[in-house]
């Protein structure tokens, strides 16, 4: 399978994973937005409502919402329903803490890459397979 030139970003955590992308055009916060038992987005006001994010590469422009978001990510890790990786343009402390804590407490490595150029992030379309390599700060799309 041919891959295009990787998109460059900043690594917030580490690890490498390939999975299907679930893409949101609007900001995303974990607090109260995902059912930890199923990994399905349960915030009715969000465009990803009803979508499965467990094991997917979650792509969104930036984080939003309460500081409780970190514990929600931790709960997803505990229940085995966390996303496989996260790609965005700006990672706030809540999201970084959530990913770091998921590894410390539940050995769940969630590669997180941010600082992706907004143009670059538009190359990541819903449903495509994406490799997120947080050891190198690279995101590549399978064509």
């Amino acid at each position: 399978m041919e891959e295009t030139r990787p998109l460059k970003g900043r690594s917030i955590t580490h690890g490498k994973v390939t999975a299907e992308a679930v893409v949101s055009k609007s900001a995303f916060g974990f607090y109260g937005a995902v059912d930890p038992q199923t990994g399905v987005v349960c915030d009715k006001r969000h465009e990803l409502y009803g979508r499965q994010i467990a094991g997917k590469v979650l792509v969104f422009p930036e984080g939003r919402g309460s500081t409780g978001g970190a514990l929600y990510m931790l709960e997803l890790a505990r229940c085995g329903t966390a996303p496989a990786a996260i790609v965005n343009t700006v990672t706030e402390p809540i999201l970084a803490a959530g990913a770091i804590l998921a590894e410390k407490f539940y050995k769940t490595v969630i590669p997180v890459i941010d600082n992706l150029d907004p143009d670059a992030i538009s190359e990541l379309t819903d449903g495509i397979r994406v490799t997120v390599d947080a050891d190198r700060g690279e995101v590549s799309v399978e064509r």
Partner: protein
Amino acid sequence: MYLTEEEQKMLDGENGPGCKFAMEILVAVGDAFGAEKMVPVRSAHTILSTYKGILDAGVEAIEQFVALGAKAAIPTTTDPAGMDLERWTEFRVPEDYARKQFRIVKAVHSLGLIPCWTCTPYLAGLLPQKGDHLAWTESSAVVFANSMVGAYTNRETAVIDIAAAVTGRTPEHGLHLKRNRLGNVLIDVQMEKMSAEDYRIFGYFMGKKAGARIPVITGLRKTDRIEDYIAMGAAAAASGGVALYHIVGITPEAGSLEEAFGGNEPEKRFSFSLTEREQTKHDMCTGGGGDIEAVMVGCPHYTITDIKKAAELLEGKSVRKGLQFWIYTYKSIELLAERMGYKSIIEKAGAKITSDTCMMISPTELWRFKTVMTDSGKFAYYAPSQVQADVVFGSIEECVTAAVEKGRPV
């Protein structure tokens, strides 16, 4: 990131596995944010205190610190618990929920935290000084410590707050650095006078306009009631994520407009007059026109002055049948209210004082209220998501009127 010899020893495990685990978390977080070093913190305040907010993962996380033998190295206070720890059955808290909450209580004691169970730790025994570095969670306490005291703290995240408590350190970034504490938006207050309610409305307005930026406020006269600043900041922290504001001529880092902005020009300018006040009060209410089923006040926790006021308004009146009137505070204030006779006046009127918790972080949604009323700008913001109810915002006077008279008030 750079670590001192002492911090390196913590990371190497010389202070025990709990301290090592905590330091590993802090180093990972510091690296993620490009912090150059750690900063010693005088105190911590944790929100790993309520089962409703932290879920099973939070319970397991705090117990993990206990299992590793961790102890708080600095004074560390607790945010409200997820229920009234003595009278929880009265508030219909399910038993399995209560069991989880008591696991948190046990862990809090094992870690050596100060179990004041309040969102106002600066009143309950841990007042910081200007320039102190802190690791606090609880957005309303963070904004108070930064703005009114001039202490330095970020809005820490749950679990990170415990890691800071155990090590006495937090990564140096954000509001720990003087250069990040300068104002960037200007809000000019154009009000003849400000009632207690106006401060809360203004706080909500400030948050909506400033977002997560740092507002500098002019034209706001000094109030004698510290409660006004507490409630104002809490509303701004909820509606917009404000962690620090400056009031020119009043707060410690704003002796002048130049000092508050550090010589920079404001990115944006807003004014707050009667017009904005009316619009904001309207925006704070989601009420669909139904009868008010519960009045919930004490967000942030009521002070003894707030309770005195409520008691005076409720004296000789009776809350209408079927309506709940709950006043939230912390234990030592409830005791004072009892000693001063306010508690019996309040109870005689059919209202309740409840301690150690609040309406948002206890399972009040289980009461399935359709419409609730509050005098809190913060709770007005969170009621739809946290209690799944419509909300009416008003002054404490309006809350009491609504509770004792028939039909829909305001």
